[in-house]
């Protein structure tokens, strides 16, 4: 076995899968995670689109695969220098590592819903986010969700929106909205559920089936139009205004609950690590890759790789696929640079 270490920064799905694959390739990954457990956003989710698979089961599988992998939880990077293709990495726990390669798996932050002030998040009690609804599904503990009769979902909150400087699509919100719409309808069968969308981007395997199921089996009403304003009436119910662009008419509706489908944004604090590594961002804030075809796992800095939603919004299957690809790219990089003193174990 070699002693070359590969530092994985971030212990979400991308980091866990990259580490697992690197280990299978005979390398020695180390996961650095700033929180107290592995899992990232996946740990906050109850079920996964398109088929409402159990998020906990997937997470447990991923964690199990990482049992024998060295990891540092509650740990932050304090400094990185590079000398002769070796990265000298200092950690907040006082430890340091010499690494042959670094894989950035720093993920994303959910868009802060209060920035879209017209939706009234943080102002009106019954406006919640997709993450909060998912937490409710996990715990059934949220006093705002109390036998709602009429529920709205707003797609593209903080995505495809010039006003908040996020012009990209977050890719997961359409499918998540329809998944959550079906789930809340399952829980409250007498409720009416509306999804306000710009375009329904149901591009992945099983997504279109989810869209049809939502309408046929759950009577989810999809309205093509954005919500422009949310307020509260004297009974504490939400009054929303929107436009139905297919019917060409403005609409006003009273709701018991409004769920904002917050999109993805670059992870906070990532610039600090980027500066240490001389890694740039795209205009959208996500980490720049070497190119958009063959260099998707590479940064422009030799030895620094990327996987997952730190470079752009991604679904979980895309993240896992990219993590696997990153592991192969790291392996090839070390081999091509003659830094390998090991052989693959089969």
């Amino acid at each position, binding site marked *: 076995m070699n002693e070359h270490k590969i530092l994985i920064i971030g212990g979400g799905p991308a980091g866990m899968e990259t580490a697992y694959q690197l280990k299978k390739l005979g390398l020695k990954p180390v996961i650095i995670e700033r929180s107290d457990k592995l899992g990232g956003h996946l740990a906050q989710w109850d079920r996964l689109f398109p088929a409402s698979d159990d998020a906990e089961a997937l997470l447990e599988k991923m964690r199990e695969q990482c049992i024998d992998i060295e990891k540092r939880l509650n740990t932050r990077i304090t400094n990185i220098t590079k000398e002769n293709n070796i990265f000298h990495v200092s950690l907040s726990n006082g430890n340091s590592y010499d690494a042959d390669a670094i894989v950035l798996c720093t993920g994303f932050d959910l868009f802060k819903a*209060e920035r879209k*002030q017209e939706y009234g998040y943080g*102002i009106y*009690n019954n406006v919640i986010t997709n993450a909060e609804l998912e937490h409710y599904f996990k715990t059934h503990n949220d006093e705002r969700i109390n036998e709602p009769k009429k529920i709205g979902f707003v797609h593209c909150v903080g995505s495809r929106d010039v006003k908040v400087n996020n012009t990209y699509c977050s890719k997961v919100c359409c499918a998540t909205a329809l998944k959550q719409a079906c789930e809340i309808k399952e829980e409250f069968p007498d409720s009416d559920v509306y999804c306000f969308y710009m375009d329904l981007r149901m591009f992945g395997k099983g997504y279109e089936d989810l869209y049809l199921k939502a309408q046929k089996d759950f009577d989810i009403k999809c309205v093509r139009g954005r919500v422009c*304003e949310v*307020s509260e*009436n004297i009974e504490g119910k939400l*009054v929303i205004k929107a436009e139905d662009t297919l019917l060409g008419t403005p609409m006003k509706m009273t709701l018991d609950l409004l769920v904002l489908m917050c999109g993805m944004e670059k992870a906070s604090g990532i610039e600090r690590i980027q500066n240490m590594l001389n890694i740039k961002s795209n205009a959208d804030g996500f980490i720049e890759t070497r190119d958009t075809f063959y260099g998707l796992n590479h940064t422009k800095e030799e030895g620094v790789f990327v996987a997952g939603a730190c470079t752009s919004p991604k679904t979980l299957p895309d993240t896992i696929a990219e993590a696997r690809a990153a592991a192969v790219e790291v392996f090839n990089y070390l081999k091509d640079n003659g830094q390998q003193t090991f052989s693959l174990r089969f």
Partner: protein
Amino acid sequence: MIVEGKQKIWADYQKDIPDDHYFYVRSCIRQSFFPGSEVTFLDITRNKLGKDFYESAYHTTCGGIAYHSDSIPQETAMTIIARQFALMHESGYENYVCSCITSFGCYTETLETWHEFPELEAKIRQYLWDSCKKEFAKPKYLAHASDIIYKFRHEIARQAKYKLINAKTGEPLKVVEHIGCHYSKMFPSKGFGGAEYPHVLVGMVEAWGGEVIDYPERRQCCGFGFRQYLIQANRGYSISNTHKKFESMEPYEPDLIITNCPGCPYFLDRWQYVIAEQTGKTYGKNGYGIPALTYEEVAGLVMGYNPWDLGLQMHQVAIEPLLDKMGIEYDPKAKYKGINGKDLGTPINPINIKLQ
């Protein structure tokens, strides 16, 4: 309602206001609509707060009404505005304060457009020189007059004789605040509190003892909307818009509407009469309407000005129920007396809404 959420937004949307020395420009229409407002503003700021406000006799319309009703192109509106800035510059002032919300919107839009397109500013300089032989300097600071009252609201509260409190029950009056659309909807950062939850009038109401109502149609236009009213065929849109607002605020039983725009108090006041005559419905108690006042009028009331000196008899909706709630003494017989006791004439009582 989560008040802390609004407070956070209010803290995010603050702006600096100079302490003194302002060039003040009046509105085209306010002196006709509610003639006591601007003179009260100047009296409060000059004589109660001791501030320097200068007016130029050469000031004209900002062109906003023509601009927003598509009668003149933007370059013409900008040249008119450039001339106002030249008057300020010639007078030795740098802080520009306008009475009108639409003017504030036009000035803000012009300055922001010149910032983004300096070549347009150069073009307007040439137009101004060609037409008036004047040169202008852009204001160092641009404020709406309600920003000034907002800035000094606590000082006004210290000097207040009355509060926005029901004198009999001790309960705060329930106040609807209505912000002119052109205050911050175009440029949220230019208004206190931003576009969605403006603080400029909320701050005044709370400083003077009242309680603000947040009702579903709070953000809706008053009904003026320029082309909604200026084009006669569209006036149905105007009144239906205003009607929608009153239906929405009705369950909260407001005592007062406070506004900071020339058109808003006018339409929220006059359309109550029309709605009452058309439908038989009034939104105040006992056949009265809900008084819709300018912020200067409200400031004047709390500071103890005579209601008739403030011009409150010019409102369609009777002001007396509000005066009684606040415990303000007034002479009912003097309501329709002008300066030196001149008889202004007494309006005929409408069928469905009480005038006094």
